[in-house]
């Protein structure tokens, strides 16, 4: 498993260095009347990548996916697959296949016929269709279900039939619209890994649309965070989570405590910012001018919480009172009111079992909080 995930990272890295991207999206805009669903997006996706389009409902992610499949036509801009312009190419001639949200299995056909449907359209001979269908059934572990109709399958089985049907034609690009959205939580977590393994085995490039940030984080090599039809940030899950560009991304992926601040000094190597909590020095270069407003973010799990002003040497220390406690079992979330008035979220691991069967910290308790300046995220807007 470990070696495989290294392999994955390697292929992704190699792919990024490839010269020709598999999919090029060039300044694509889609308008429905006055409403701009997708606003001037630009993106390259390389062969072998598992790419996620992540955003809330109505952010344009599905519309973008439908343009890739050919169900919608861009108002302006170009989509190229293997450097071939796709404008005017109908869905049935594109080298893409799609796995639909809620699967869109043909209810009047058996599992076998559903999977074979795409191959039949290409006029492939019967014995080859049979072989390839069987291989797909083996891949998704549904042998013995050939003759069943979709109505006779459970949700998880339907999902796998849909995946097999979309993969059997060996598309260059597989488009997945909320592939796990219809499954319950336990099954979803298990299926995430199955999906990654299958992608690794078949080596097909995946573009996944999802609104579930956890799903995007687990699955993707790269994520594009979308809002109001535009890309806000594109990067690996780690980049997106640890180095969000702005407040929207910081809050959309996980949660963050955000403080407003002002740049007071900008040397080429570091940035000094003043906030309500005092001054912070960030060791990073930036083009921000002195006097401009910025936002600083700190993730709840990167703050440590202690009963007394600790001896630990950390860049930043402040104190407050526990106002609320959310006990999740493995972790606890504390809402701490700082002395100067701000409410801060802190997440702490519960590594020790509390012997008095109560929380590590209790309501109204005075605590001190610390964090390192290296964990502070600089958000430009």
């Amino acid at each position, binding site marked *: 498993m470990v070696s495989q995930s290294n392999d994955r990272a390697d292929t992704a890295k190699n792919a990024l260095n490839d010269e020709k991207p598999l999919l090029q999206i060039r300044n694509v805009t889609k308008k429905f009347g006055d409403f701009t669903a997708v606003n001037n997006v630009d993106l390259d996706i390389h062969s072998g990548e598992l790419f996620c389009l992540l955003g809330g409902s109505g952010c344009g992610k599905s519309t973008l996916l439908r343009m890739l*499949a*050919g*169900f919608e036509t861009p108002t302006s801009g170009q989509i190229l697959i293997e450097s071939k312009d796709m404008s005017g190419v*109908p*869905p*049935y*001639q594109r080298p*893409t*296949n*799609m796995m*639909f949200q*809620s699967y*869109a*299995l*043909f*209810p*009047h056909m058996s599992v076998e016929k559903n999977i074979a*449907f*795409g191959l039949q*359209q*290409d006029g492939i001979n019967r014995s080859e269709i049979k072989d390839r269908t069987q291989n797909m059934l083996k891949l998704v572990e549904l042998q013995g*279900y050939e003759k*069943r*109709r979709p*109505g*006779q*399958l*459970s*949700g*998880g*089985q339907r999902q796998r039939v849909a995946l097999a*049907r979309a993969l059997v*034609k060996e598309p260059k690009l597989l488009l997945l619209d909320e592939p796990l959205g219809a499954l319950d939580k336990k099954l979803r977590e298990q299926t995430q890994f199955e999906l990654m393994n299958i992608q690794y085995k078949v080596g097909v490039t995946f573009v996944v649309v999802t609104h579930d940030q956890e799903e995007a984080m687990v699955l993707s090599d790269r994520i594009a965070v979308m809002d109001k039809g535009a890309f806000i940030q594109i990067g690996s899950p780690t980049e997106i989570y640890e180095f969000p560009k702005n407040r929207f991304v910081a809050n959309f992926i996980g949660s963050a405590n955000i403080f407003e601040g002002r740049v007071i000094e900008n040397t080429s190597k570091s940035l000094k910012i003043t906030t309500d909590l005092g001054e912070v020095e960030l060791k990073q270069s930036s083009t921000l001018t002195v006097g401009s407003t910025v936002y600083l973010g700190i993730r709840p799990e990167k703050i440590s919480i202690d009963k007394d002003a600790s001896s630990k040497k950390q860049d930043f220390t402040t104190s407050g009172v526990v106002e609320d406690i959310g006990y999740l079992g493995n972790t606890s979330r504390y809402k701490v009111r700082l002395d100067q008035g701000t409410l801060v979220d802190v997440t702490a691991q519960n590594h020790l079992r509390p012997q008095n069967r109560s929380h590590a910290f209790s309501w109204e308790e005075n605590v001190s909080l610390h964090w390192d300046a290296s964990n502070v995220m600089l958000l430009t807007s």
Partner: protein
Amino acid sequence: MTQSRSSFLSIMLFLGFAFLYVPMILLVIYSFNHSKLVPVWGGWSTRWYKVLFESPEVWDAVRLSLQIAVVNATVATMLGTFAGLAMVRFGRFRARTLFGGMLVAPLVMPEVITGLSLLVFFISLKDLFGWPAERGFITITIAHITFSLAYVAVIVQARLTGIGETLEEAAADLGAKPFKVMTSITLPRLAPGMLAGWLLAFTLSLDDLVIASFVTGPGANTLPILIFSRIRLGLRPDINALATIIILFVAVLVAIAAYIMFRQQKRELLDQQMAQSGGD
């Protein structure tokens, strides 16, 4: 409390069903009346059934009605399906609501108006082109198609909206060209709606007296026209016999439809059980 309510409900139920079925039961009983005068009971007999089966006029009317009904139902189902498809899948276009409204207008138009306008239409057609030379089978069929089409279109439209476009998109995505999508996905999914439309068009046509009376010509009597014209000369026992046969025919059709629906439901239930037990 419960006791009184339930007896009240039983009485209402009994009265309601009596209201619906007593006239028909009387009709059936009197069809077996030996007497020549309908209201006078003359003992049990199948005499009038024999009279009926020996009357060539009745057989001609039955044949004509069935021919019209079948041709009407088939053509109306085809045209109505296309109309429904166009309305749902054509996409947004200007005046779509207007077209939608115009498509269903024949449903609310008084039959007398429809019949009259069609008669005027056929007469002017004959003046202009010499066709249709005489009114009868062809004119009644065309007239029936015009209003049956609207019913079929409404049913197909509802069914199409219900099944959505995703399946068709999935088929196109898998490489099916538009015609193939139509034949392998859309039409099989529409089949129950089309069958319902066909049956409705068939019954509407068998039922129709008003429009047929307007557009028919000499010698072309559909069954309703025949019954009505005979009744005008007074109640006749052989017509009671004919009505009884029609009631029997309809009852058999309804029973078959109910059985098919029952089987369908049972199958869906079995499917669900299978999905749950075979689930992972």
